[in-house]
C-alpha cells in the first residue's frame, strides 16, 4: 500500500519533509505511540484524526522533540532528529508550532509576540523584525492589533497571532495541535481560513484536528489514529467516503460524519 500511496501523493516522488519510522512513546507504563510510521511530503497538508488519547498530539510533539521518542526515529529533511538539546533547538527553529491554548506570551504585545523569536533567537535586527511582524499580522488579518496585549484579543485573534509568531521564524513545516479546539464556534472559521490560505501558499502542514470538514476540504492526506497506531491512511475522499477500517467508520459516525 505504501508504494502505491506514495505515488498518489503530492510531491510523493521527492524526499519527505518529515518521516516517522516506527515511533514509540511511553509515559510510564502507558504506551501512547506504538510504532507509528508515516511521511509528510513537501507542500502537503497532513491531518491527524482519531479519538482523544490516540496519540495524535504526542506524535506532533515528537516531531519537534518537545517529547523525545522512546523508540523508532523521526527524520526531518533527511536527518534523524539530533540528540543534544543545543542541536534540537536549531531543528525547532525550522518548525513552527501552534497550540490548542494559543500560549501567546501575555507580557508582550501582539507585535512583540511575533517579533520575539527572530530578535531573541536569530539575532535579527529589531526594526526589521518588527516590520516583518507587522506584515505577518496583516497577513492574518490583524494589522491593526499589533499594539494589543493578548488579554485584549479574542481567542480567534490570539490564535492568528500565534500562527504569525510561528511563521516569523520562516519554518519549513507548521505543526498545528488542535488549533481550534479551545475556540468559540464563531471564531473557528477565521483561524481555519488563515490555515487554508497558508496551505494554498504551499506551506507543509501537519494538523491534529477534530474539524472534519476542514480535513476533508484542505488536507491532502489523512492519518487515522487509534490506540497509538495509524490504523488507516489515505486521501480525504477515501477516508471520509469509503473508510475501510471498522474503527475509522465508528469514529467518523460518532462525530456525525455522513460524507
Amino acid at each position: 500500500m505504501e508504494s502505491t500511496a506514495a505515488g498518489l501523493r503530492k510531491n510523493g516522488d521527492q524526499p519527505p519533509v518529515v518521516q516517522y519510522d516506527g515511533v514509540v512513546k511511553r509515559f510510564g507504563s502507558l504506551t501512547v505511540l506504538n510504532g507509528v510510521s508515516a511521511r509528510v511530503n513537501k507542500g502537503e497538508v497532513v491531518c491527524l484524526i482519531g479519538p482523544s488519547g490516540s496519540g495524535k498530539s504526542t506524535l506532533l510533539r515528537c516531531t519537534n522533540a518537545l517529547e523525545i521518542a522512546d523508540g523508532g526515529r523521526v527524520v526531518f529533511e533527511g536527518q534523524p532528529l539530533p540528540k543534544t538539546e543545543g542541536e534540537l533547538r536549531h531543528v525547532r527553529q525550522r518548525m513552527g508550532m501552534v497550540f490548542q491554548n494559543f500560549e501567546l506570551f501575555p507580557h508582550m504585545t501582539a507585535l512583540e509576540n511575533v517579533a520575539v523569536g527572530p530578535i531573541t533567537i536569530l539575532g535579527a535586527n529589531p526594526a526589521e523584525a518588527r516590520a516583518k511582524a507587522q506584515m505577518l499580522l496583516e497577513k492574518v488579518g490583524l494589522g491593526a492589533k499589533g499594539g494589543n496585549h493578548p488579554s485584549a484579543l479574542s481567542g480567534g485573534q490570539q490564535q492568528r497571532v500565534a500562527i504569525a509568531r510561528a511563521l516569523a521564524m520562516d519554518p519549513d513545516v507548521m505543526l498545528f495541535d488542535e488549533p481550534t479546539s479551545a475556540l468559540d464556534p464563531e471564531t473557528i472559521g477565521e483561524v481555519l481560513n488563515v490555515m487554508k490560505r497558508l496551505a494554498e501558499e504551499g506551506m507543509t502542514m501537519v494538523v491534529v484536528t477534530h474539524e472534519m470538514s476542514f480535513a476533508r476540504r484542505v488536507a491532502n492526506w489523512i492519518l487515522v489514529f487509534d490506540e497509538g497506531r495509524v490504523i488507516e491512511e489515505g486521501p480525504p475522499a477515501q477516508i471520509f467516503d469509503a473508510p475501510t477500517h471498522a474503527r475509522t467508520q465508528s469514529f467518523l459516525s460518532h462525530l456525525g460524519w455522513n460524507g
Partner: protein
Amino acid sequence: MDFDFSPIVDNWGFLAQGLLITIELSVATIVAATLVGIALGLGRVYGPGWLRVPLTFYVDSMRAIPVLVVLVWTFFAFPLVTGITLPPFWAALAALTLHISAFVSEILRAGLNSIRPGQVRAARALGMSGAQIVRKILFPQAVVRMLPAYGSLLSVTIKDTAIASVIAVPDLMRQSETIAAQNYAPIEVFTTAMLAYFLILFPVTRAVEAFYRRVAHLGRS
C-alpha cells in the same frame, strides 16, 4: 487626662532624623533583599542540584528563625566569631537582608512555578534556549504575578526595621523611645510614631496594589 505634644514639637528635628534613618534602612533593605532574593529564587528553581540543597536549607532556616534573633546574633555574636564588627546600621541592614531575601526568593519561586507549562513549551517550540526562556518568558511573568505578595512583604520589611532600635540604630523607633523617656510622654510620642509609620506604609501598599491592578493582565497566561 491631659496630652502634651510639646516634646514632639520641641524635638521634631531629632525625630525627623529618626524617620530619615527608618526610610534609608527600609530602602536599602528592600533593594538588597530583592536582588539577593531573586538570585536565591532563580538558584533554587533552575540551579544545579548541588546548589539547591544549601539554598533550600538557608531559606528554610531564615523562615524558622525570628528576625530579632538574626539581628542580635549579627550584631553581638558575629563580631566574636569573625573579629569583624559591623556598625549598627550595617548590622541591621545585613540581618534584615538575610531574613527578607529568603521570603523574596519564596515569592519568586511560587511565581515561577505558577506559570503553566504551555508557556515553556511554546518558547521551546520557537527554539529558545533555557536561559532565554527564563529571561524573556518566565521571569517577566513571575514578576507581575508576585507583585501582591511582594507588596505585603514590602510593608513587613518597613515595619521590621523598627527592631533595629534594639541595637541602637537611631531610627524613628529609637528616637521616639529616647524622647518618650526623657519627657515621660509615651502616649503622645508613640502615637506620633505610629502615625508616621502608617503614613509611610499606607501609600506604599496602596501604590503597589494599584500598580498590580494595572499590570495584572501581563502575567495572565
